[in-house]
């Protein structure tokens, strides 16, 4: 029905206000299937708010967010997840009373379950294979509370992957990591993109953004101030002002 090169995600005229404060101001952008998309902007520019509007944590007006051609603005977050939108959180939100593999089992039980009648043992196997792909297999039975910062970030990505997403949104998965850890997580995200998963990556670390993104968008005070090829956006006058001017 939808042509093959139709956008996976269409944001059109999206505005989000908190009381009198406008966090997102008339944002419109299309994300293509399989794209590696970088989202940058100074603190408080509205990046996380945009993710919350896409994933369903915040409600928005009808037809402002289309996914695979369908309006998803009226759907609760869990339905959006089942349709293929997964995210990680800027501040990790693991299920603390569970082990690492159980965290993934939640995703496999609920998000991937639609029409999937595999046995519990088979789902456990799937969870384990996702974990080993992330280099977390040895931590599978550890409590989520015992993980280090990098491991937590990886577990969030693993849990998001376990929902079998078409679109994965990573919200500063590299914040607070050492440079070798940044490379590790970046390689992970690159490898996901190779598996036909569209990735939106929010990041402050510029080298990571430059290496990862095919296209970059910069937000400032809720408005798009630049969008295009990474080096063009970085060279943009207003982007430089937004980052350096504050």
């Amino acid at each position, binding site marked *: 029905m939808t042509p093959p090169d139709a956008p996976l995600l269409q944001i059109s005229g999206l505005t989000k206000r908190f009381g009198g404060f406008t966090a997102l101001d008339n944002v419109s952008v299309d994300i293509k299937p399989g794209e590696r998309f970088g989202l940058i902007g100074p603190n408080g520019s509205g990046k996380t708010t945009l993710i919350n509007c896409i994933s*369903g*944590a915040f409600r928005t007006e009808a037809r402002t967010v289309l996914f695979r051609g369908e309006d998803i603005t009226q759907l*609760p977050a869990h339905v959006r997840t089942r349709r293929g939108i997964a995210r990680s959180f800027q501040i990790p*939100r693991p299920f603390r009373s569970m082990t690492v593999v159980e965290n993934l089992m*939640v995703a496999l039980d*609920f*998000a991937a*379950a639609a029409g999937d009648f595999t046995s519990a043992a088979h789902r456990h196997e799937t969870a384990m294979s996702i974990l080993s792909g992330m280099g977390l297999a040895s931590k599978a039975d550890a409590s989520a509370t015992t993980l280090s910062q990098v491991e937590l970030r990886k577990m969030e990505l693993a849990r998001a992957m376990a*929902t079998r997403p078409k679109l994965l949104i990573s919200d500063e998965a590299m914040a607070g990591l050492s440079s070798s850890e940044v490379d590790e997580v970046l390689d992970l995200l690159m490898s996901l993109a190779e598996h036909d998963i569209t990735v939106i990556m929010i990041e402050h670390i510029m080298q990571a953004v430059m290496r990862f993104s095919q296209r970059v968008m910069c937000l400032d005070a809720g408005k798009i101030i630049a969008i295009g090829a990474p080096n063009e956006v970085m060279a943009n006058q207003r982007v430089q002002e937004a980052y350096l001017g504050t």
Partner: protein
Amino acid sequence: MKRRGIFFWIGAIVFLVAIALMTKLIGNEYPFFAGYVILQFIVLAVAWSILGGHAGYVNFGTSAFFGMGVYTAVFLFKVAGAPLLVQIAAAAAVGALMGFLLGLLTLRMQGIFFSIATIALTIVIETSITNWRYVGGAAGIQLLRPPVTWPFSGYVQMLFFVQAALVVLAVAISRYIQNSWIGRGLQALRDDELAAECTGVPTLRLKVLACVISGALMCAAGAPAAMYLQYADPSSAFNLNYSVSVLAMSLIGGTAHWAGPIVGAILLGSTQQLLTVTISSEINVLVLGVMLVLFVVAAPEGLIGLLRRIRRKEGKS
């Protein structure tokens, strides 16, 4: 997993057979009178834990559900002389409806606000019943038990058996929830509702489901109390003591495993019975308070949590 299921059901059948034999062999009514109260508390604590333990929503309104169970039975008995099983089934339906409404409340209220709302609910319902003359109003109402039906020798024995059957039902449901995707979903939303939603868990639907099941069981547990006491009045049917005791039983037993609330209800229920008989019913409140404080400090995960910790330590050394 499967083997354990078989053991569980064998245990349940043995339990019910033993209860049935007791009603045949023991002539004295008193053991049934006392035992009934403990069985009733097991049902209440297990039901409470479905919402309070798995989902982490602390319900202070146990007495609202219990009292509505009592008064559903009173109403049906007065209006149509409905038999006991009909009273219980109707009470379960009323409890399910109340649970449904309470579940919708979780959409807007979490944590302490939810708990306060459940107290408010209790007060509103108790006040309404107090002002309803047909079921006796504030003065209460006397009920005359109908003749007991075969195969039971006395009405109290029959109530005892029926409450034991409710125990099996409640425990089976709680155990099923714990071992199924429902339990995993509730545990996820207890840890973090937003993360659960974004992992595909239909949080509202699961919370409503937990409230409906918990509410139906609590109301059902209250229904036979009317015939048990042959009397009902709002201030005892909606006594806040039910809410506090049941909460304490669940926490002291531990909510991490379905057996926790059973252990807690037996332990605290029998202690309370003993104290009521030997000293006075006022001392119960004191003992309850002291035990709660002790457990919150020394074993915040209850007896079940304590047991697990000891086992883990032994496994390590």
